[in-house]
């Protein structure tokens, strides 16, 4: 849906400090940071030096007020995504749009909201549409400051005696945004005109009330108006709580103190971040690319130019310079595409931010000061920075999440080298499957669903422990799978099974955390559109130090099946696909079976009693699997996390019957492992020989599948630098291209 301007006018004019415009303040702040290397040019953090207790007290009080706003306001929402899973976040910003402090939640948006505020300032919203006390603004445009349109942001300016002293911001992940396909991670849009309701920093209220025309417009644009409305009230109520907390603080501490604090705390955070890098990491260069598949060649419902099988390429290169400055470079990323997975630099910066807050600076002041200490390079024209504004971003997360896995592994190499082994993680699990769709639900209402059980995939393995089973996702450290009952209230699908997904964690000395699976049955709806969203043809998250990637996903559904007869005759029905071969389902139910590795597709119709298996992925492994202790494997087998077959094939386990029970034969296992070590070496060749052979047999003759060829062609076209890297490694002349 295209944006139609809505004109709301109040008074206009400079709103900054001492009669200045916000734009002048922002430009000054940026100039000072560039010239001096310090936020606002601050050589010293005077307040922290002179009144450290007061400094800390003010920070804690503000942070507490934001957490309080989140925990209180989320109760207004009826959406399980917000209420159950906590897909929201509040942040307090300075007048120029730098975050001062934040609540818990989807931290990625603390920086994307900063970009949106700065957009309003740069484009002179003070003059038109005006920024006044009591105003409300809304944004969800990825090209301004966002990841995808379903993340909706509300902003409330905070005034004190006529001066704008900050902004309260909140984001919630809404159930549906009215895209061409239903749900909150739309897969199907190929241009922005299909991405749904776009609200590019729109003034949507005044005097603390939402404009009625805005409310009507949004309610008619989305498939889930009731959830939309309550989410918007959640965001607004929390922002107003934050505004009151700030005003209360100023009444007690004085406006001069507050103004000084919000300057000092940014510079303090910038310095702390650099200090922590120097304390925890190792300067150097780290390389950790990522890939994910997109299989739409056979999809006739897409425009012809979008029908292709292709692979995302995220050639992540991380640099930590001797001064402690961290850079992340995506040079070599392929061209943007006519698909739903493009990202903007705002999204990429936000993603880096959310990773750093969970790794390098989890227990210090977290705000945009750290942003001033990092650089991120998003090559123009690539999928991380499209050079047109018409790209679709419906499910930008699908490319975004795997592309940053390498940052975790790279940081972990540094943690290990520095001795902080307890911080090492092999990465994180891919956040799929997303059960997503829409139609007439079991309440006879038009609806859309995005099941957020994928907030609890398997965690990465560490040096000191296995990955957490069905635990979390990287983009929301407070993630939760939600209650079955809550999902069944909003989705016309019953849960007829939910269990740990055997063999889903990456194998290794430390095992990746297991995912889980849910067997769903369509219930009380004549027809409903559903799709699968997750990796399938590739491993999107590799392991580390000899650990392997977790299993990728698959598509399993049985339509027009004989479940009604099975229920009537009280025969066993499937509750999952225990051995991930489809037989756990197809041996019990007859019908039209979908079983393949095309794990991201477009919505298709499902009917009453149809079965849909939603598989949540595991985390990557760490270390040589032949060094995993038999005790740990026994625990895995008992817990249903590992099958005997994988224990034998991947871990070299030999079973024996002892006291009538199957048990691991330690002695024969050790012997078998010695044999496997020798066998693996016998199957290997010196790497230099392999490079020479691969060059001749595969690279020079371009003997590669079409998706892989397309990926190389795209990266080498967008980036001459990456093309040189490729040619140099394989010793190819400058004319070589795909």
């Amino acid at each position, binding site marked *: 849906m295209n944006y139609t301007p809505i004109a709301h006018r109040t008074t206009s004019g400079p709103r900054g400090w001492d009669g200045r415009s916000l734009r002048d303040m922002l430009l000054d702040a940026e100039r000072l940071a560039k010239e001096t290397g310090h936020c606002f040019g601050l050589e010293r953090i005077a307040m922290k030096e002179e009144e450290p207790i007061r400094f800390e007290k003010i920070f804690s009080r503000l942070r507490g007020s934001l957490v309080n706003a989140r925990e209180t306001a989320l109760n207004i929402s009826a959406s399980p995504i917000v209420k159950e899973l906590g897909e929201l976040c509040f942040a307090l910003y300075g007048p120029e749009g730098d975050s001062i402090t934040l609540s818990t939640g989807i931290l990625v948006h603390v920086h994307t909201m900063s970009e949106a505020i700065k957009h309003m300032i740069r484009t002179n919203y003070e003059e038109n549409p005006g920024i006044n006390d009591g105003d409300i603004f809304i944004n969800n445009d990825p090209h301004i400051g966002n990841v995808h349109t379903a993340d909706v942001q509300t902003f409330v300016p905070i005034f004190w005696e006529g001066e704008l002293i900050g902004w309260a911001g909140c984001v919630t992940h809404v159930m549906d945004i009215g895209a061409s396909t239903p749900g909150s991670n739309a897969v199907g849009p190929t241009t922005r005109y299909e991405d749904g309701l776009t609200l590019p920093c729109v003034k949507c209220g005044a005097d603390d009330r939402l404009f009625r025309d805005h409310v009507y417009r949004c309610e008619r644009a989305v498939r889930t108006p009731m959830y939309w409305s309550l989410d918007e009230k959640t965001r607004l109520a929390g922002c107003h709580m934050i505004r009151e907390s700030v005003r209360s603080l100023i009444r007690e501490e004085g406006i001069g103190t507050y103004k000084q604090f919000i300057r000092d705390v940014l510079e303090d955070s910038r310095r702390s971040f650099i200090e922590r890098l120097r304390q925890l990491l*190792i300067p150097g260069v780290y390389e950790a690319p990522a890939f994910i598949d997109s299989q739409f060649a056979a999809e006739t419902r897409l425009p012809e130019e979008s029908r292709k099988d292709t692979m995302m390429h995220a050639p992540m290169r991380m640099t930590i310079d001797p001064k402690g400055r961290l850079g992340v470079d995506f040079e070599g990323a392929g061209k943007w595409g006519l698909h739903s997975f493009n990202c903007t630099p705002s999204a990429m910066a936000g993603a880096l931010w959310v990773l750093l807050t969970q790794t390098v600076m989890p227990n210090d002041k977290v705000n945009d000061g750290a942003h001033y200490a990092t650089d991120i390079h998003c090559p123009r024209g690539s999928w991380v920075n499209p050079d047109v504004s018409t790209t679709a971003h419906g499910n930008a997360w699908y490319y975004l999440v795997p592309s940053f896995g390498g940052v975790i592994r790279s940081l972990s190499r540094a943690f290990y*080298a520095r001795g902080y082994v307890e911080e090492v993680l092999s990465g994180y699990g891919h956040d799929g499957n997303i059960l997503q769709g829409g139609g007439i639900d079991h309440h006879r209402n038009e609806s859309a669903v995005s099941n957020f059980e994928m907030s609890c995939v398997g965690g990465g393995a560490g040096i000191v422990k296995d990955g957490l089973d069905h635990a979390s996702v990287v983009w929301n450290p407070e993630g939760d799978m939600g209650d079955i009952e809550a999902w069944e209230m909003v989705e016309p699908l019953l849960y007829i099974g939910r269990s740990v997904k055997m063999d889903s964690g990456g194998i290794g000395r430390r095992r990746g955390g297991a995912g889980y699976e849910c067997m769903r049955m369509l219930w009380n709806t004549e027809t409903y559109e559903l799709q699968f969203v997750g990796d399938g043809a590739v491993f999107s998250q590799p392991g580390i130090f000899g650990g392997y990637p977790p299993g*990728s996903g698959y598509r399993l559904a049985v339509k027009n099946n004989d479940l009604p007869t099975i229920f009537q005759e009280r025969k066993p029905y499937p509750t999952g696909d225990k051995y991930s071969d489809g037989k756990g389902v197809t041996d019990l139910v007859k019908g039209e079976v979908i079983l393949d590795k095309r794990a991201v597709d477009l919505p298709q119709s499902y009917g009453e009693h149809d079965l849909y298996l939603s598989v949540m992925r595991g985390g990557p492994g760490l270390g*040589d699997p032949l060094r995993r202790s038999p005790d740990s494997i026994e625990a895995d087998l008992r817990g249903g996390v590992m099958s005997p077959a*994988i224990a034998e094939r991947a871990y070299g386990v030999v079973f024996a019957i002892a006291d009538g029970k199957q048990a691991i034969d330690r002695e024969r296992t050790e012997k078998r492992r010695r044999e496997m070590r020798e066998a693996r070496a016998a199957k290997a060749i010196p790497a230099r020989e392999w490079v020479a052979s691969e060059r001749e047999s595969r690279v020079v003759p371009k003997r590669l599948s079409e998706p*892989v060829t397309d990926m190389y062609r795209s990266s080498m076209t967008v980036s001459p630098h990456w093309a040189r890297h490729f040619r140099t490694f394989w010793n190819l002349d400058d004319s070589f291209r795909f």
Partner: protein
Amino acid sequence: MIPSYDRSTLEELLDGNLPWAQTHSIMSSFKDPDRFDKMVAIHQSRVAWKEPILLPYGENLYIVQKADSARVVKCACGQEFGDYRQNWKLEALVRVRDTQDEIDELYPKMMAANAAWMQLREFICPGCKTLLEVEAVPPGYPILFDFQPDLEAFYTQWLGRELPKPGTT
């Protein structure tokens, strides 16, 4: 309060044998600034060779100072992989799983990647046959140089001391 941990605690931590509550406490606390030297000393005591460890480089791998001026990547077993500024993987053995059967060996039937899209490269120590690293990349992708530390800057600018000289222990 800046913590510091004794050697036995760090050894237990490295081996994953600390009670979870204690591990969690170490994770949540401010970091102990003397960790690097203590951990290097632990690693050094666990290997049979004498060259000083300059940096733990990965599980089983180290960057060490040779008696001459060379700084090389070395496995715990003693196998050497050459100058640390060159990619050690090129001196390793590699087994590439690039057929469906070879990938399927390690995964349940429906959870393996498609060999036309992706291969697994297993880098193996020629000395002890330990699996040191696994790459999951599309066929034709250049071998990854995972980590190129700036040793000089780390020692002189971050630790505030010179790199150990050749011949020291």
